[in-house]
């Protein structure tokens, strides 16, 4: 046990990290292209972006939360649960006999599902925030527990089965504008931009960093730390709802565990993107690059026809590389 590190030598670390991430992304692209030129085709690149849109949206929420010093490892379970609820509503809508009297029900089941999903997202976020604040326990533990609860609820609702949308809700996940640009990419870009503005150019964003950097100093400066924390959790819930809509729309069916893996994938992307697990550090651009890197590696392995099971190993190596870099550029002044 060492006394807490005193001073650190840091100079534009965020910038350096995003440069490093960009270089790495470029390198992966070059290697993949050399092995299989199809990689660099515009359709494949668009595919990659479409594939990472769900992860990117989730990561933006959790990234902001992590900057404020809290963590949520139940996001995947939240998305799965919302997917189930939404698919359930749409499926029921589709099962109604399509006579004139019921036409409106079929029509309205989709908007209804969307509204319900966002409502559930808000409630789940608020609930998580509330439990974290009231229990005064570490959010890692709280969300570990809540994730298990959400998974349980999803299993109860689905009875272990799945729901399908009968292709009735494809806009978010599959539709392409001008037959080229998937709608989900637009949502991803929008969410990333909003996150960027929020973190960099708003007072609320500044409060997130302050609370993550030194909660007590933020509190004494007059920041309503609990209210800000609550808002960060709710934001996570709402973005999870959007992610659930896009994901289920793309996949077409919902299972109880559909999205569970996103909990750790999102965390991996955020950490690769340089957000300190202790809070107070990170930015939207790097988070996006982290997500992109993970997406590209996954795709490149497939395109290069490498055993897809290697993906996990590569991602592990990338995480270690990234945090080592951050550690080196911000170590104690000796060494």
């Amino acid at each position, binding site marked *: *046990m060492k*006394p*807490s590190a*005193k*001073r*650190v*030598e*840091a*100079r534009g670390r965020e910038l350096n990290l995003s440069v490093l991430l960009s270089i790495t992304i470029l390198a992966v692209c070059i290697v993949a292209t050399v092995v299989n030129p199809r990689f660099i085709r515009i359709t494949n690149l668009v595919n990659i972006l479409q594939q990472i849109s769900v992860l990117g949206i989730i990561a933006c929420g959790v990234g902001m939360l992590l900057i404020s010093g809290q963590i949520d490892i139940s996001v995947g379970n939240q998305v799965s649960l919302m997917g189930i609820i939404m698919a359930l509503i749409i499926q029921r809508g589709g099962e109604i006999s399509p006579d004139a009297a019921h036409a409106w029900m079929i029509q309205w089941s989709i908007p209804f599902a969307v509204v319900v999903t966002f409502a559930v997202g808000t409630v789940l976020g608020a609930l998580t925030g509330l439990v974290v604040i009231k229990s005064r326990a570490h959010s890692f533990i709280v969300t570990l527990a809540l994730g298990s609860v959400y998974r349980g609820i999803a299993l109860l609702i689905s009875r272990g089965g799945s729901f399908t949308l009968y292709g009735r809700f494809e806009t978010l996940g599959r539709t392409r504008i001008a037959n080229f640009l998937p709608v989900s990419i637009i949502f991803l870009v929008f969410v990333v931009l909003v996150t960027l*503005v929020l973190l*960099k*150019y*708003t*007072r*609320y964003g*500044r*409060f997130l*960093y*302050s609370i993550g*950097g*030194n909660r*007590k*100093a*933020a*509190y*004494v*400066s*007059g*920041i*309503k730390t609990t209210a800000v924390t609550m808002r960060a959790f709710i934001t996570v819930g709402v973005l999870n709802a959007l992610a659930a809509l896009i994901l289920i729309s793309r996949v077409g069916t919902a299972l109880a565990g559909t999205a569970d893996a996103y909990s750790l994938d999102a965390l991996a992307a955020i950490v690769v993107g340089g957000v300190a697990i202790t809070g*107070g*550090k990170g930015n939207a651009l790097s988070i996006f690059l982290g997500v992109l890197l993970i997406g590209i590696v996954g795709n490149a392995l497939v395109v290069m026809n490498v055993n897809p099971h290697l993906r996990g190993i590569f991602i592990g190596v990338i995480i270690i590389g990234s945090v080592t870099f951050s550690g080196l550029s911000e170590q*104690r*002044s*000796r*060494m």
Partner: protein
Amino acid sequence: MVTGMALRAERIVKNYPGVQALKSVDFDLRRGEVHALVGQNGAGKSTLVEIIAGSVSYDSGDIHIGDQKHTYLDPSRSIELGIQTVHQENQLVEEITVAENIFLYDLPRTRYGFVNLRSCIQAADVLLQELGIDVEPGKKISSLSFVDKKLISIAKAFSRKARILILDEPTASLDEQGRNALFSLIRRYTSLGLSTIYISHHLSEIFEIADRVTVLKDGQRVSTKAIGETSLHTIVPEMIGRSSQSLYVRDKKGRQTLEQGSLLQIVDFHREGVVDHVSFSVRAGEVYGIAGLVGAGRTELAQLVFGVDRSDHGSLLLDGKDITAGSPFNAVDEGIGFLTEDRKDSGLVLIQPVYENITLVRFVKEIKKKVKSLLNLAKEQDDARTVVQQLDIRTPTVSQKVINLSGGNQQKVVLGKWLFADSEIIIFDEPTVGIDVGSKSEIYKLIEKLADDGKFIIIISSDNPELVSVCDTVGVMRFGRLVAELRGDQMTEEQIVKHSLGVSVIKEPEL
């Protein structure tokens, strides 16, 4: 009398990005001497001693300890070589006990290799009693007050038989008693051959305790002299590069002028066992000081008024209107500011840049005023630059992380944050701790200007001369109670000490 060299550092160079902290500095320490190190904020004092303590690396130079030359030092090596350090910033491990912190480097073990907490606490108890420090060894560090943490750091340094003791501003926010106790400890150990490097911005202490004094300026050594061959009048210009200004004395406003201003009443604040029914009032434009020994309940009182801690009762009235704050955000909303004494714990977000720390409270206020516009980073940094200039904060840019600033410059950042937060009522808890003599008078002038603008200023300080020269009124606290209010001719250091200690009070002024 022991003779010889305990330590010799030659041509030490240390560069940080954008800052040359030490430019080929020579320093030596004789056996059994107290060698003082003085200089402006950011001069390189802490850097030099941290290098000797092994916690900062150096770019070039030689270090001889005893008669051995060392090219590489780290904290545990330094400790093995008999060097003990009280760092400027608290470096204790917050989540374990006082006793474990004191013996961190060789914890007593049980037969099975586990930490033997009981014997650890016993040993700590013995040590603390011997040093006259009144702190429970079984308590967690995080539950201690700022000053108690400082005392524990000192106790830790004395827990091992050291050959070289490094004290980096050990007396910052200690009171008379604490300082005297420390000095007698130093004298006792020095007579046994211990050598001490002593850093302080209280220059009077230097003349009381040191045998030699070295002045550093901008990373270079200006002079090393025996204490008898120098004086305040030589040291201060060597430190700050200009002649020593006469001690700051404020033009005190007459009672009559003050009586016309608005009235802030602190009414019957109480928290069982800590603050005992304290009431007093401050006029707009008045600087009201609160004196007392450490532990007299001054910081606790401020925390109750600001809403950081819950009070059993107590209210704050501004011209009769109740503005009692139940929490810091209410307090900030009511126009109250509170500079806390522990900058690392509750004053600064150390990993954030200077400018973000300076502007934080302003953004909190803008949120309350429902300002919705996006932040203008360029303007924000310009504003911060103005503050940096006004307070003469030494930093390469306003984007430097606060953690990379020297201690005194960090303190100036907290001051900047509250001086420019535009609060109506400001409570300063030990505002000038760690700030050099050159900057102090500038800060007093800024505080005076706030008062002249009709703000209510409350200053808690253990630096009695400071209170006497800056305040219109000084209230003295003892055991949680406000025991005296001193004004005019009554307001002297002597009176303050007398009331703080509670000895031979001849005529107690009515409250």
